[in-house]
């Protein structure tokens, strides 16, 4: 007989005791852009070779705390709730300004959610934000809280000259989770798939991350994101055709296109949420800022599949159904495409200065 702790061969989907949904959402993208061709010119002498057109760059006075506050304010504007009703403020990032000291308390204080709230930072590479969302769904779904706030935000670090420098962008999204009946999109189920797969990492005190080159592809990104996506489709007895949109973690344009095709999704289904060519890979923000772009245009009844991927490694999958409330709420804050259109191009030297890449001592 199985003991209670023995592993289950067939896991269940994660579903809260009471239905939960997204009550408000908000995106944020800094305004500066550096062109891929500009980076290529510096490192290769030619303008070709960048996987993206351009990437977003945070300004000198921006970091994950300030950017999270921007996105959180947008989410609250759409949620139309009093911030003091939030019982959790959770920020997922791999660029928290402090190694010890929470980003989340800064955000909670700034938006007026203190002091009766949970607050903590999440860390799981590019899926830190979606992990925070799953926990936030759980807190609401269990009845412990009416509203929670989960944020995924990054100012990604790319080592100068590394392949990842072309894509390491800045941005993310915030979500107010609450009762399904108040929501603009209902969370139908979530599922996570995790193993210890060290494909990309940054140790304490290191300025830039390292990665396992080709190991980041097949056994890391593709394995986890495909397993999570496939399980979600099978367990919900749905197929790609049942979803209007899909959003996959997007470290570059090619990876999500390939995984989408392997799960049966067309290019049209992932087009709206595929923002990496214009803002780069926003790491913990990447999948969920794609979701905000979809919510900006989705129609009531549309179903959306979101699958994040975080190095180290794991994927969180979400099956989401849009409700009527989206129509009246999405205009209450700046839309994701408006952030993308609000751009100021900078050259490589300015980018280097903004990102503190010049060693002064």
């Amino acid at each position, binding site marked *: 007989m199985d003991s209670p702790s023995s592993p289950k061969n067939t896991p269940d989907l994660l579903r809260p005791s009471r239905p939960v949904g997204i009550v408000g959402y908000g995106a944020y993208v800094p305004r500066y852009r550096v062109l891929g061709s500009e980076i290529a010119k510096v490192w290769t002498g030619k303008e070709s070779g960048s996987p993206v057109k351009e990437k977003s760059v945070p300004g000198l006075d921006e970091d994950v705390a300030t950017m999270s506050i921007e996105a959180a304010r947008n989410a609250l504007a759409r949620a139309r709730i009093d911030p003091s009703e939030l019982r959790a403020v959770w920020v997922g990032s791999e660029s928290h300004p402090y190694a010890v000291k929470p980003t989340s308390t800064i955000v909670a204080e700034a938006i007026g959610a203190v002091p009766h709230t949970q607050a903590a930072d999440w860390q799981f590479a590019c899926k830190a934000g979606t992990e925070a969302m799953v926990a936030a769904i759980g807190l609401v779904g269990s009845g412990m809280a009416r509203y929670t706030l989960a944020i995924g935000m990054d100012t990604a670090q790319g080592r100068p000259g590394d392949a990842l420098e072309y894509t390491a962008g800045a941005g993310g999204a915030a979500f107010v989770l609450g009762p399904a009946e108040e929501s603009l999109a209902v969370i139908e189920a979530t599922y996570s798939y995790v193993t210890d797969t060290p494909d990309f990492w940054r140790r304490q005190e290191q300025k830039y991350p390292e990665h396992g080159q*080709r*190991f980041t592809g097949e*056994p890391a990104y593709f394995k986890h994101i495909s397993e999570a996506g496939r399980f979600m489709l099978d367990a919900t007895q749905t197929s790609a055709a049942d979803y209007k949109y899909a959003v996959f973690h997007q470290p570059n344009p090619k990876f999500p296109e390939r995984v989408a095709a392997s799960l049966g999704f067309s290019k049209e289904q992932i087009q709206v949420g595929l923002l990496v060519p214009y803002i780069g890979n926003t790491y913990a923000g990447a999948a969920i800022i794609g979701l905000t772009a979809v919510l900006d245009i989705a129609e009531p009844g549309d179903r959306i599949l979101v699958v994040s991927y975080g190095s180290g490694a794991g994927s969180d999958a979400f099956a989401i159904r849009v409700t009527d409330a989206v129509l009246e709420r999405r205009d209450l804050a700046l839309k994701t495409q408006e952030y993308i259109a609000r751009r100021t191009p900078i050259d490589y030297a300015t980018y280097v200065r903004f990102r503190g890449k010049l060693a002064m001592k």
Partner: protein
Amino acid sequence: MSEVVIAGVGQTPVGEHWEISLRSLAVSAIRAARADAGGLQPDAMFIGNMLASTLSHQSNLGSLLADHAGLRGIEATTVEAGGASGGSAAHLAYQAVASGMVDVALVVGVEKMTDQVGPEVEAALAQMLDYDYEAVQGISMTSQAALLMQRYMHLYEAPRQGFAGFPMTAHANAVHNPNAFYRRALSLETYARGEMVSEPVSLYDAAPYVDGAAALVLTRSELVPQDLSHGLVRITGSSIVTDALALHDRPDPLAFKAAGFSVERACRQAGILPQDVDLFELFDAYSIYAVLSLEAAGFAPRGEGWRLSENGGLSLQDKLPISTMGGLKARGNPVGATGVYQLVEAALQLRGQAGPNQVANARRALVQSLGGPASTAATHVLEAWR
């Protein structure tokens, strides 16, 4: 007279086996070879491996693999000679069986390379060179091959395009090898566009480093089970020859003298001339290695070897097919295992089991693996027997 025969062969697909450990890879190949050999019980195992202690933090492979292959207790040791490790392991196994000291010997080549990133692997491979005088200066296998190719092109006025036939032949042959890494043809146009790794060695002049394991069961003819369903292949020549480790210690770096002497000795033992073979599994880790090996073996005069591949001159239908299952270039180069893959592939040819790649009427094969730029050369002559 008692013959040393290859009673069984086994191999795993080569590739980026991130989810398969060194021991599992080796055990897969061992199991396949033992099954092929009709249940012969090995007394000894000779393991070809170069990099386990550096890239997998694992030495003492003899004990590890004997244990995990269900052969705990048998004699088992690693043979290391850079890229010639697999061929050298086969040579020692051959000696052991031929001498009568061992009745049944397993030869296993195994290499696990993709658990480390590129620069780590390059640095580990450079251990094949003279560390104190070459590697310490920053030279790698590829940059050294580039020096050889540059010198060759200068001395013999060979055009870079003249090397295209070698990778093109290898890629064409790999298309039908289910165990190969690059199962796609290579066009002249693609070759010409190849990105330089270390000029003039382009991406298409250098074999990819991959994981893999291959195995052979050797025994004496009288011990072979009667009910084997496949033909037997005998080893009629086996030799290892070394040269100066450092390229700068050789009066004529383009000569690949050890490769030449090794062919000469193996052929003399077999009582044949190199020209008597029906195929040549040569060591095409780099296009220039293939050229220099052909010249060293006497298939072309010095400075003319590159012309052999013109107009598909070394293809499966031609007089001297090379790299018949894709060679190092397209099957892939799991360094210490490569020599065993070459022997497995040649044995399949001589057994008439090479599928769409079968060389018609193949009776005799020459097989050579090289450690460094022919610093060590291990050469075998195989013949179809019954």
